[in-house]
């Protein structure tokens, strides 16, 4: 491949770049996954491995991905296959990079479906569809939406309609281009997200004391609760868990998901950087913005609110049920119980689901970018044509997720592409960028145009600690989760066929993408030969 390339689109402003990068990182997990992970992994003590992983894995990977992306972008590559080849001149490199197109595309498709729930619940909050429902009714409302049986307030076709609408908005934004679409969305969406979240945090923390009846050891008891009790519950240190390897892996996993590293989308965004653009400080600012959204806002919302209205035991039960129950069952119940009546409840619901929608869409447009760039640069398609192709594929495959959601179709994609695959790509890119490209080259590349100089300590971290952390994570996850998951351990028999079909579709996408890479390189070789 040539080391010179035609000029590519560039970010309009540095604040736009950081908001888009942070928008990519801030997602549903900041508000739904983080509080659950903290509660289930030692509360306050969870923050120790969490911040260590942030410093040793999260921030270094952010710099690595910005470095890989800009290095590739300077050579005309907007997706990982070309980026890998530009740092490792080997025929295999581009095929390893398939993960950087495969995973964001696969995650985009099912993530859009989950994102469409937030849009639907924003609508339901305004129309009052969930107003007056008790816990069981709220759970049935969510279940009937997921299993397409329809229910009070929504017909069976409604999930399809919201998915189409969500997908349309995503494709429309990415088709508009980098500055007019993605950057503009980030500049509008991120401030709205932070404003909505801040208003809700203030409202939750000023809820005051409530007297509720809750079950303690199977006996009904009247207890006094408050949001501060929720924060106490979330941050109380459980020192018995500090040396538990599972807690350290859970913390590192959370850092992975929250920063959206190992996906391929950060690299795609970074490919639009100029050679003289700062990465050291901007990358750090992206990480910090995400952490503010996660720890300060995400950590102060759901758990304190749920503890106030359901008590500690209720919060534990809801947390164990999963992030969706926390977001789509417990929080609407909280809003139904807010002082001020229906209007305040509707407004709070609108802001909660609205902020989740903006958190989701600023991430999903980033996931669409690698595949868009690949089609544009490899086959000469324009942005509109690439957007339509990806939209059509996402539409068809998204229908499978909607129809077979209760059969575990989505869970398979979420595990293999949205969880396990992230560590594989992160490890490959770290090895290539740090060890193959060389620690000195890596260090120079990261500092090119840098607004701050990183302490030498981080060169050691990037060279040895981050790869070691990733190897341990991958080995542990393979042994404890990937093998049992592959063998369908604990899966209901009626889901097994659908789950295998789900894996088959994923494999088909991967094989097609490998073939497209082969075609793209052959096409480039022909053009190069003709020139």
């Amino acid at each position, binding site marked *: 491949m040539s080391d010179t390339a035609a000029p590519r689109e*560039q970010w*309009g*402003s*540095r604040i736009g770049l*950081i908001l888009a990068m942070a928008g990519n990182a801030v997602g549903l997990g900041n508000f739904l996954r983080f509080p659950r992970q903290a509660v289930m992994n030692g*509360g*306050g*003590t969870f*923050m120790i491995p969490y*911040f260590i992983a942030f410093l040793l894995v999260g921030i270094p990977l952010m710099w690595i991905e910005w470095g890989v992306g800009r290095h590739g972008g300077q050579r005309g590559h907007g997706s990982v296959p070309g980026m890998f080849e530009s740092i490792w001149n080997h025929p295999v490199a581009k095929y390893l990079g398939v993960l950087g197109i495969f995973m964001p595309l696969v995650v985009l498709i099912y993530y859009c479906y989950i994102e469409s729930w937030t849009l639907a619940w924003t609508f339901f909050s305004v129309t009052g569809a969930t107003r007056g429902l008790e816990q069981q009714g709220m759970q049935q409302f969510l279940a009937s939406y997921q299993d397409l049986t329809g229910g009070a307030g929504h017909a069976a076709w409604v999930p399809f309609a919201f998915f189409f609408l969500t997908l349309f908005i995503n494709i429309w934004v990415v088709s508009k281009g980098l500055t007019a679409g993605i950057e503009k969305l980030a500049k509008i969406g991120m401030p709205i997200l932070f404003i909505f979240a801040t208003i809700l945090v203030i409202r939750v923390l000023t809820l005051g004391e409530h007297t509720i009846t809750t079950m303690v050891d199977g006996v009904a008891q009247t207890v006094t609760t408050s949001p*501060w*009790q929720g*924060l*106490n519950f*979330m*941050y*109380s*240190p459980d020192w018995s868990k500090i040396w538990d390897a599972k807690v350290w892996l859970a913390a590192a996993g959370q850092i992975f998901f929250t920063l959206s590293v190992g996906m391929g989308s950060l690299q795609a965004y970074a490919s639009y950087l100029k050679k*003289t*653009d*700062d990465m050291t*400080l*901007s990358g*750090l*600012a992206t*990480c*910090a*913005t995400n*952490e*503010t959204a*996660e*720890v*300060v806002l995400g*950590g102060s919302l759901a758990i304190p609110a749920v503890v106030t209205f359901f008590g500690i035991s209720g919060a534990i039960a809801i947390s164990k049920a999963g992030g969706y129950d926390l977001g789509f069952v417990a929080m609407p119940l909280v809003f139904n119980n807010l002082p001020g009546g229906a209007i305040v409840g509707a407004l709070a619901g609108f802001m909660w689901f609205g902020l989740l929608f903006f958190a989701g869409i600023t991430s999903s447009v980033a996931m669409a970018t690698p595949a868009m760039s690949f089609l544009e640069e490899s086959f000469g398609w324009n942005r509109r044509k690439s957007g339509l192709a990806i939209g059509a594929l996402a539409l068809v495959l998204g229908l499978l997720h909607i129809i077979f959601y209760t059969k575990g179709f989505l869970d398979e994609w979420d595990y293999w592409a949205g969880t396990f695959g992230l560590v594989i790509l992160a490890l490959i890119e770290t090895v290539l960028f740090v060890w193959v490209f060389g620690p000195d080259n890596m260090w120079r590349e990261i500092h090119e*145009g840098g*607004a*701050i100089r990183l302490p030498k300590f981080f060169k050691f971290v990037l060279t040895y600690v981050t790869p070691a952390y990733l190897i341990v994570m991958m080995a542990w996850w393979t042994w404890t989760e990937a093998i049992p998951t592959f063998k369908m351990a604990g899966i209901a028999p009626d889901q097994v066929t659908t789950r295998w079909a789900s894996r088959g579709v994923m494999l088909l996408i991967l094989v097609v993408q490998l073939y497209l890479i082969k075609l793209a390189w052959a096409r480039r070789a022909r053009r190069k030969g003709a020139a």
Partner: protein
Amino acid sequence: MSTGALIFMLSAYGFVLGLTIWCFARLMKADPAHEHLPPPGTSL
């Protein structure tokens, strides 16, 4: 809140907010040439 929980919470909030404020303060002080401003003397 218990003292332990309060210490952990405030430390976490302090770390991320401090880092965020520091980053954006440094970004504002950094070279504005990174923004796509027209060269000096160019009419808008």
